[in-house]
């Protein structure tokens, strides 16, 4: 059970990455490659606020919320909006991701930094397994955010509008939907969430500039498994990946973790390109 709980905690991190992908994908039809980097910016801001400035948690949350949302919006304005073609976007988005990491390196250096835990570091016992209280909070946070976003996308006008944009950008435009404002909005929202979750992620992941690249790809595996646009399935896939990873690490060795995930990714993409609960394909060839 301890392994399962550890897997769920790691899975929660992946779920948050995939959630960010999905929000942006739903509202604009693009995959925000830099989302994991935005999350890492949130974690570094948490370190900065909690450790370097010794602030209380609330102002740290507000600051991270604002700054990361701003960064996401800047990314949309500079690297995505002016570029129409997917080949161009691939380049500029990889650029944006690398630039965010580069700025982190310049400001905070290349050493991994430890973000303090909210609660004391004593594991509690749940369902017969040991887990840190912070990790439980993280799992809860991922579940609650996923549920909230899924409900918003299904039952509110804004959510339905976003779905319409991801289905067909042009006909959404013809229906009078402001596609640009929608794209702007989803970037701001995903950035804000990435900022707010930073202080909760930090204790588990540390603030490390090398982490986003692997978070980005594993978040993408969850997205591919769950299917673009399906929030609940994607988060479920993310939790499953986390658990599988922990078991592989325990029984085969840590070196095999990513290898197995990679194999799963390739098989899923080749066999069920729409994801296990996918709505539709990213693009039709």
């Amino acid at each position: 059970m301890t392994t399962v709980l550890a897997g769920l905690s790691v899975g929660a991190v992946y779920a948050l990455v995939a959630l960010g992908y999905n929000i942006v994908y739903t509202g604009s039809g693009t995959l925000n490659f830099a989302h994991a980097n935005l999350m890492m910016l949130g974690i570094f801001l948490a370190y900065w606020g909690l450790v370097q400035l010794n602030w209380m948690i609330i102002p740290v949350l507000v600051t991270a919320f604002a700054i990361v949302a701003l960064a996401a919006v800047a990314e949309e304005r500079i690297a995505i909006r002016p570029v129409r073609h997917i080949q161009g976007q691939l380049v500029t988005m990889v650029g944006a991701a690398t630039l965010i990491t580069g700025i982190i390196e310049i400001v905070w250096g290349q050493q991994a930094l430890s973000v303090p835990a909210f609660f004391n570091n004593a594991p509690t016992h749940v369902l017969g397994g040991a887990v840190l209280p912070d990790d439980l909070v993280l799992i809860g946070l991922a579940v609650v955010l996923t549920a909230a976003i899924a409900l918003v996308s299904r039952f509110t006008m804004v959510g339905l509008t976003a779905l319409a944009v991801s289905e067909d950008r042009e006909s959404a435009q013809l229906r009078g939907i402001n596609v640009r404002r929608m794209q702007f909005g989803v970037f701001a929202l995903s950035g804000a969430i990435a900022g707010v979750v930073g202080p909760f992620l930090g204790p588990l992941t540390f603030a490390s500039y090398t982490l986003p690249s692997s978070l980005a790809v594993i978040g993408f595996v969850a997205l591919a498994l769950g299917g673009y646009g399906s929030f609940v399935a994607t988060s479920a896939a993310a939790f499953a990946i986390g658990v599988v990873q922990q078991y592989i690490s325990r029984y085969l060795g840590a070196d095999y973790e990513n290898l197995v995930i990679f194999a799963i990714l390739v098989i899923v993409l080749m066999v069920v390109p729409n994801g296990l609960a996918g709505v539709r394909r990213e693009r039709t060839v």
Partner: protein
Amino acid sequence: MAVVLALLPWLGVGIYWNQEIVQTISLALLASGLSLSFGFAGELALGQVAIYAVGAYVSGYLALNVTPDVFVSLLAAVAAALVIGLISGYPGLRLGGWALAMTSFFLVLLVPDLVNIFQQYTNGPIGLVGIPPLTLFGVPLDANQYYLFAVVIGALWFVVFRNLVTSRHGKALLVLRRSPVLASSLGIGVRPLKLKAYALGAVPCGIAGVLTANLNHFVTPANPGPFTITTAIAVLAASVLGGSTSVYGTLAGAAVLQLGPLRLTSFNLYTDAVDGASLIVFGLLLSDGLSGVCTRLLARWARRRGGDGGGPVAEASRQPLTGTLSGATLEIDSVFKRFGGNAALSGVSLTAQPGKVTALIGPNGSGKTTLLNIVSGFYRLDQGRITLDGGSLSGRAPHRVAASGVARTFQTPSIPKGLTVAETVATGRYATTYTGMPTSVFRLPRHWRNERADRDAAARALAVTGISHLGGADAESQPLGIRRLIEVARLVAADPKLVLFDEIASGLDDAEVADLSEVVRELADAGGTVILVEHNFGLVLDVADEIYVLANGAVVASGPPAEIRSHPAVLREYLGVSAEALEAVPGKTTTEPSS
């Protein structure tokens, strides 16, 4: 340039620059690998660094445990790279866009894990150390000789790369990048060509691995080190900066990134920020990189000097088609095709003879284009038979249908980006004459022979369609009418047996339509089999020998124009006018109202 570079050490340039230049060559090799997939095949595969690592480990392992011979190292590394390139390229056949980018990105992240798993060969996290110098015919290379070797190998690859991308294979890749449908209609096998591009793109990465392993005599998976995401990003930046469809641009891009002012002063800390910012800037500003900037500057300079580069060229007049075509009889025998519950074709039979223009008319949705798509292999038929001179076409892949001499146009002209009009027309001959990749790479006599034949055929086809004066202009940016004529010229250049025209007159002015109807007629008179799907009834009556009228997926009438123009069923169902009304204005173009 290569000669100057090669002689640098003997001109008193120090060891530091030796190292920097060898690293630049490695980066350029990697970037050229990326350019093959991104610039030419149009898919972003970022796995070069993984193959780079494989090349380095293979070379290091061989030098330590088997032999430090240069040729053994190179051959083994290239062979290993090819194998990995094929394996990792295979998913790339089905994936595109982000899925491929992410999968290949993931591959790079796996490098340290794989190094640990194969610890007995790779020595795990410590890496291979104390690799002996490479030997050439048993003589160890000293630092300067090694440098010379690196420059020569790099230059050799770039000659190969240049020969490949400037040949018909490079152009075929550009066609593929524009549209897989277009590629297969020209007889280009999409999957084999993509796989070849991925496999070939792996070769320079393997070579770069050899160069890096033997430069510092150690190979390590450590971060920061050569085999990390940072390098993958730098490779992408070099390729995009240089212009990913340019040979020299790739070299220039690598040089700027490796030797650029920012890199030298502040080593590691600013690397990511600089690479990231450059990717955004280059991605936004330079759509075709430094090489594009140079091309535009050169063009402006030429215009200012001579004035012969820019101004309007006198329009060439059309020349009649000479020569003969060996047409083939197309027989379509009771073909059925359903899309879900919608029967697009129900039992269509028709025969098209060599030397004749067979027209297919009918209202929108009557199944004309569906029939063309079935003949060219894009749709599978549910029932029935299609034969060309007795050989079955049904069930064949589109590129095989095209290779058997079937050429076609599209309702919306499909023109690849980055080619001139003459080059675009020459791509029509991909399946007409065969040139293998090795033939092109080594520029064997056959390459030159076919190249000349292609050029001549393209020139003739341009003359026939009356656009010779545009031969050197950029094809993609031409107006609709010209793009249609380019498509027709591309088809004429192919020396086809069977020609399928899909609504070529739409969007053309009267003079263009008149020219075009002459081309259609001449193709048939030369002996070709011509099928014309058309809404322009005047054009059809003008050029067709035999007309088939389709309605709701079935042939409602067929016969020579004189018969069809007064056929009651046609007038009622298709034209919606009475016989008297048509007789009253003889020769008047009647176009169906479009939906």
